């Protein structure tokens, strides 16, 4: 891909190179396109695609269901990427993807995010393609899976039917199945959406998306690693006066409200905790504090989520040790605490072992936790049953109409939004004693933004 300042645009070349699976269809980004790109387009195309990716990220953290995501992706693409001329669209599609590869290849965290969003984008665009287009794309991904021969299909037909019904689909609708090693379709295995036998998963045509997406993800992952090497080795230096500053600026681009941490630091101390909990802690942290005070214990998941939150809020290591010891020693004695738990706290502060300074969990991570027996971590809006959530919100002073609206949003899985409503960051609900935006709340808001 050559970047020039001239006005030449070779849009048609985009269709020929870089891979489209048919007329104006989904590119697979296998090779960098052989075309020239204007410098302004370099940045503009990338920004537009970034809006799509950030929109996807937002949709995911709001817990949107697959049907909703499909609609969202279609809208985002139409708004930011579609051009009247399909060849132009394809051009922008390919260029923007490769530019963002440069932007997001540079650290592990950036790569992970980019990979995740591009894969999601691809997944839903694939779903929106026609069956012929999908079949062509499958071939392009060299998925050597042949359709199940009729005799084999007959043998397992009943089980396949049972699986379909178990996931809410009609029985005996699908007739094309693929026999695939279970390792290739972890998502389908995890959600028990396939029949398994002797190490093979029986995947329906409609589920093929998963197969394709896994391959796509794998290819992009490898490509990113390669791009990173090239960037570090040659590109960054070569382009230090032209592309590098643009690339570096793009990775910090953020398209939401500004919740950056205030310079007058958020520094809580031991004595502040109980009071701040009532006024400013998010529901999940407040709940864990209550349980800790009640049981003088918290399991590992809770210790991590709550402990890192306190650390991010400015609680110093000595105060943290004193805080946890004061509670735990009431149950197990301070000697056992020092022996079995103090190490982990110091580890979280980067004083032991790998000496990594761990950062607090983002809402996204908290929502996707899997609390088990005896656990109190996770997101109350997601993980609490209705009764318990109502009780917790009541305790916070939320009732009446506001409470019902919140419970309704819970049903529709808008978890992250709920937190902000509950602490009064939106104007819609006037919740007593929770108005104003204190330092702690700014801090927790910044966790929401953390991708």
């Amino acid at each position, binding site marked *: 891909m050559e970047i020039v300042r001239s006005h030449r645009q070779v849009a048609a070349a985009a269709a020929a190179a870089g891979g489209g699976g048919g007329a104006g269809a989904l590119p697979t980004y296998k090779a960098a396109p052989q075309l020239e790109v204007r410098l302004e387009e370099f940045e503009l195309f990338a920004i537009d695609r970034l809006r799509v990716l950030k929109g996807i990220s937002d949709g995911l953290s709001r817990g949107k269901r697959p049907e909703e995501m499909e609609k969202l992706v279609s809208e985002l693409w139409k708004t930011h990427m579609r051009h009247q001329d399909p060849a132009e669209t394809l051009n922008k599609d390919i260029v923007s993807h490769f530019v963002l590869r440069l932007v997001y290849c540079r650290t592990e965290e950036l790569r992970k995010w980019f990979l995740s969003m591009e894969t999601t984008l691809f997944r839903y665009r694939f779903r929106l393609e026609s069956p012929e287009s999908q079949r062509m794309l499958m071939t392009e991904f060299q998925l050597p899976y042949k359709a199940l021969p009729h005799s084999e299909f007959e043998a397992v037909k009943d*089980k396949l039917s*049972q*699986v379909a*019904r*178990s*996931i*809410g689909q009609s029985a005996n609708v699908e007739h094309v199945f693929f026999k695939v090693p*279970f*390792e290739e379709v*972890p*998502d389908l*295995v*995890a*959600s*028990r959406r396939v*029949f*398994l*036998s*002797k*190490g*093979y998963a029986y995947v329906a045509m409609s589920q093929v998306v998963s197969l394709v997406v896994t391959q796509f993800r794998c290819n992009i992952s490898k490509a990113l690693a390669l791009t990173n090497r090239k960037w570090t080795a040659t590109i960054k230096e070569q382009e230090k006066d032209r592309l590098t500053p643009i690339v570096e600026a793009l990775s910090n681009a953020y398209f939401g409200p500004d919740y950056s941490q205030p310079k007058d630091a958020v520094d809580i101390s031991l004595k502040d905790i109980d009071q701040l909990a009532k006024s400013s802690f998010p529901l999940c942290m407040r*709940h864990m504090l209550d349980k800790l005070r009640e049981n003088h214990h918290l399991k590992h*998941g809770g210790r991590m989520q709550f402990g890192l939150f306190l650390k991010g809020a400015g609680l110093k290591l000595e105060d943290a040790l004193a805080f946890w010891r004061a509670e735990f020693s009431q149950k197990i004695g301070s000697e056992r605490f020092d*022996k079995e738990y103090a190490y982990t706290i110091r580890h979280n502060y980067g004083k032991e072992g790998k000496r990594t300074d761990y950062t607090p969990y983002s809402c996204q991570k908290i929502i996707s936790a*899997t*609390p*088990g*027996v*005896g*656990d*109190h*971590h*996770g997101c*109350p809006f997601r*993980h*609490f*049953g*209705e*009764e*318990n959530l109502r009780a917790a919100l009541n305790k916070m002073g939320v009732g009446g109409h506001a409470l019902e609206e919140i419970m309704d949003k819970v049903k529709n899985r808008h978890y992250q939004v709920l937190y902000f409503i509950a602490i009064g960051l939106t104007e819609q609900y006037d919740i007593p004693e929770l108005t104003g935006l204190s330092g702690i709340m700014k801090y927790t808001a910044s966790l929401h933004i953390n991708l």
Partner: protein
Amino acid sequence: MVRDDEQVDSMEIDEKKQQQLEAPTAVPEGFNTDYLRVYYGKLFPYGDFFKWLCYGNDGKHPGCDQSYVGRREFSFTLENDIYLRFQSFDSATELESSIKEKCPFKIDIGPVYSVDPSKRHAYAQSGNNVFVPVERELIFDIDISDYDDVRYCCSGADVCLDCWPLMTIAIKILNTSLRDDFGFSHILWVYSGRRGVHCWVCDSRARKLSNEQRAAIADYFRVYKGGENALKKVSLAGPVLHPFLAQSYMDVLKTFFEDRLLLSQQLFSSEERCQKILDLILMKGLRRCVEEIVFSYTYPRLDMEVSKHMNHLLKAPFCIHPKTGRVCVPIDPSNCDDFDPAAVPTLSQLLGELNATGFQSDSDNSLERTSLGKSISFFRTSFLHPLLKACKEELESAYNAKLQQSKNSLNW
């Protein structure tokens, strides 16, 4: 040693046990360094243990990976809670002398890394993650204290013959699925020494699984969800059950619940207990209610975190549990109904048996004369030998394929 409440047939006490009680060679119950030293000196099966973890890479075949076993991490917990990580050994003799010397209270097995764990710092300098796990058995950890909310006979670390069958169920269901659904063959089930069981899936396909694939398998098995505050922790969606769940229900759970659990746990004996069951019933069909109740009380509960990450350390088989003194012996999944945790040999019992047979014999015979002999024998015939046979076959075919490839490349 016979417990007062242990069932005995027509008041007849096993003669051997009677002898043990009265013999001057009986050893008082306990767990300490002196006892351990004898166990590690005479009974711990170093050879079998090492052969297992070599997976055929014993240097005899040209296709062997000589570095393989030396890249495996072990960790030792010593007497004063001193914890040694990243131990590695290149030979059985090295492993043996280290264990004998350090006398660890607990031995954990970690993954096989890309490089020898003891040399990991040398590779840390380059920045890129070159010290990473590359192989690790697929493991499961089932702990009966995770069932505390559905068992009324015991709680916490206790276990009895009324609630132990929950572990038996877990073994049956998982073992069947690992074999039939996932196609694994080399599966080792081990008593954890106190209140649970561990599962080691050792097929090479299992060892090569990524974290994501492990998580997927663990999720496939997971039914119980939600922390302390989720109302319903078992929610079976869909008009019918997935074949795996349906089969588990029909073959194992239903019978167990009806025939044993209802009675032994007295699930309807108090208003509080009835209410607990009622709480599980929401607005849905009766059959699904019953299914969900049965699943809540009986279906296996896995520790997800143990299975998901390749670098998770798990206690080694044939260790001794410090709190109970019992040996972590293998469990035969096809006879798991007969497994009784209270009948597992203890350290002091084994030492007493050694005493009784005298010390003049060499170490090979010591094993057979004790209660541990049966477990070692089972380990060898049911697990180790078939595994090593499969490993050899794999090594040979991989090696032959490589030879063929290089031959082909010379063909013009």
